[in-house]
């Protein structure tokens, strides 16, 4: 498939997305540290290549279901960062009017059916979205992002069983960052590759380097093409690593500093930048410009979000039911 690093537009777009995810989450971390943000947060720093690569294979009206660690998915699918940030800052202008927070951001205009606070909660939902696409005859595809830990849940199993039976247009994309909170996926699942699970559902399964945006894009593209042409679901395991703790309460006792350091040397962003430079597609100046552009966009989005009015408790009762 077309090498992203050799196409200037594609390369720019990839870098913009990956940097935006990184910078967005760094900003979240900072705001949180300064007491300006509430609740908890799950950062995907280090994992940016997975949503970025995956969403490159999708149309705007294709669906994704996301997770508690969902900022990257949301950004990669095309959401507005100001409204995302506004949500985290508990503003009325946030995607959920401050009712959902980080774990529930959705942007249906770009096909994101929502982050989910429930591990594997989005799996049967993705299957349902794919069923819906199939029944409406739209050729839309659903990509279900989920973690390695999610594969211990019955919801994961049932969602995949139904999708396989009905051969629905859905891609189960496991972001295997090696841990479900403190539980090592290696220990949890007794498997060399989580993609070995796919066989048990009679669907194709593949494992790719999740820090290689090209590898992710290619695998997802293949799966999406198959799904769109009626070939049914695919399971993809993307190997990656979360640099930060699981959430704010994490003391990182279950893994070594060396392991974290080792994985930081596999940062997906500079790795892709290096490829782009090597291919001569963009110059160091171009790269710098992208970084600056992202920084400026983000800074201004944070400022605007922060200046917006707080979510209000008016009409809470009326907001429970649609009418």
């Amino acid at each position, binding site marked *: 498939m077309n090498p992203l690093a050799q196409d200037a537009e594609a390369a720019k777009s990839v870098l913009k997305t990956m940097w935006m995810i990184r910078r967005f989450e760094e900003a979240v971390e900072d705001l949180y540290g300064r007491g300006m943000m509430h609740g908890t947060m799950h950062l995907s720093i280090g994992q940016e290549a997975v949503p970025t690569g995956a969403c490159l294979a999708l149309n705007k009206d294709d669906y994704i279901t996301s997770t508690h660690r969902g900022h990257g998915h949301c950004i990669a699918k095309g959401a507005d960062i100001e409204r995302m940030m506004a949500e985290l800052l508990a503003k009325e202008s946030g995607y959920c009017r401050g009712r959902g927070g980080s774990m529930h951001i959705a942007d249906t205009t770009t096909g994101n059916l929502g982050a989910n606070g429930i591990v594997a909660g989005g799996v*049967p939902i993705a299957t349902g979205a794919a069923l819906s696409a199939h029944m409406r005859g739209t050729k839309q595809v659903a990509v279900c992002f989920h973690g390695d830990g999610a594969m211990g849940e019955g919801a994961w199993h049932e969602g995949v069983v*139904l999708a396989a039976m009905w051969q629905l247009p859905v891609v189960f994309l496991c972001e295997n960052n090696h841990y479900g909170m403190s539980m090592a996926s290696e220990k949890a699942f007794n498997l060399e590759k989580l993609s070995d699970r796919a066989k048990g559902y009679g669907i194709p399964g593949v494992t790719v380097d999740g820090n290689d945006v090209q590898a992710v894009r290619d695998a997802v593209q293949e799966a999406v093409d198959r799904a769109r042409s009626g070939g049914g679901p695919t399971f993809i395991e993307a190997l990656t690593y979360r640099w930060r703790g699981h959430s704010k309460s994490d003391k990182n006792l279950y893994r070594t500093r060396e392991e974290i350091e080792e994985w930081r040397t596999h940062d997906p962003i500079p790795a892709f930048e290096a490829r782009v430079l090597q291919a001569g597609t963009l110059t160091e100046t171009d790269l710098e410009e992208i970084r600056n552009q992202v920084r400026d966009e983000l800074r201004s989005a944070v400022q605007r979000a922060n200046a917006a009015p707080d979510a209000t408790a008016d009409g809470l009762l009326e907001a429970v039911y649609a009418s």
Partner: protein
Amino acid sequence: MVDEVVEGTETKVMTYAEAIRDALRVAIAEDDRVFMMGEDVGIYGGAFGVTGELINEVGTERLRDTTISELGIVGAGVGAAITGMRPIVELQFSDFSAQAMDQIANQAAKIHFMLGGAVNVPLVIRAPGGSGTGAAAQHSQSLETWFVHIPGLKVVMPATPDDAKGLLLAALDDPNPVVVLEHKLLYKTSGDVRVGDARTPLGVAAIRREGKDLTIVATGVMVSRAMEAAEQLAAAGVDATVIDPRTLKPLDSKTILASVTATGRVLLVQEAAGTLGFMSEVAAIIAESETFAHLRAPVRRLSGLDIPIPYAPKLERAAVPQVEDIVAAATALVTEW
């Protein structure tokens, strides 16, 4: 209204199961977005025969047999509902809502609110509850409490064939998740059912009978038992009002309170286990209201025993209110106070 079926409306005698099938037929014909999925709803015709031969009319796309995966199918219903379909999920027994509770309570019920109103979840979940078939503890529960307690769900409990059809069609119109709790013992009962697309509005109680001495509020299969009891009571000179809330959430408490204010006595009858059964809420609403001052006797609940439903027929019968229990409780309320 005392008489459900308005004079002049065309009706047909159907069983409760047939009435549901009729609603499915109507809804599938009139709206491309409607489909139903569940275990054995296709060629098998449903564990209780609700779908019958409907598969031959509507086909396997609109009436989908699933694997035995309650959580998965409710979740698939949620996914379909938020992307433009109007799915109905049949749970073979309402007891298996336990399997699906995350998708029901944590997803379907909350998505609209949690996402700031960005999405609706027009999902209907049908599930038969109740005892009386000898199916024992894991197949006989009345679990309306679980759903009524969760903000974001609507809950209906049809007691007649006409409501079985009308409430299901109204549930399908609603942009919110609605849990339709049917009763196994009612499937084979028959009555007049309005033909065509006849809706029973959500949130409106039915006054099944009007009397001045006490108010009986009953749900599900208890409605017909309360009606039978009321006949016996009438013969003994006690004139009872019988109210069937039909929709448990949102509850038409106005109708109930008005009646209790008028009669001054209230008997709340349910099949579910008493402790935190639905009638606890009705009792609490009465105790908190203005009606409180009009009570001539304490509120009285008549509920299923706080036990798992036993298998043995006599024990099963003893576990939930019977006509004679209703008569006795009503008589005591009227004579002792």
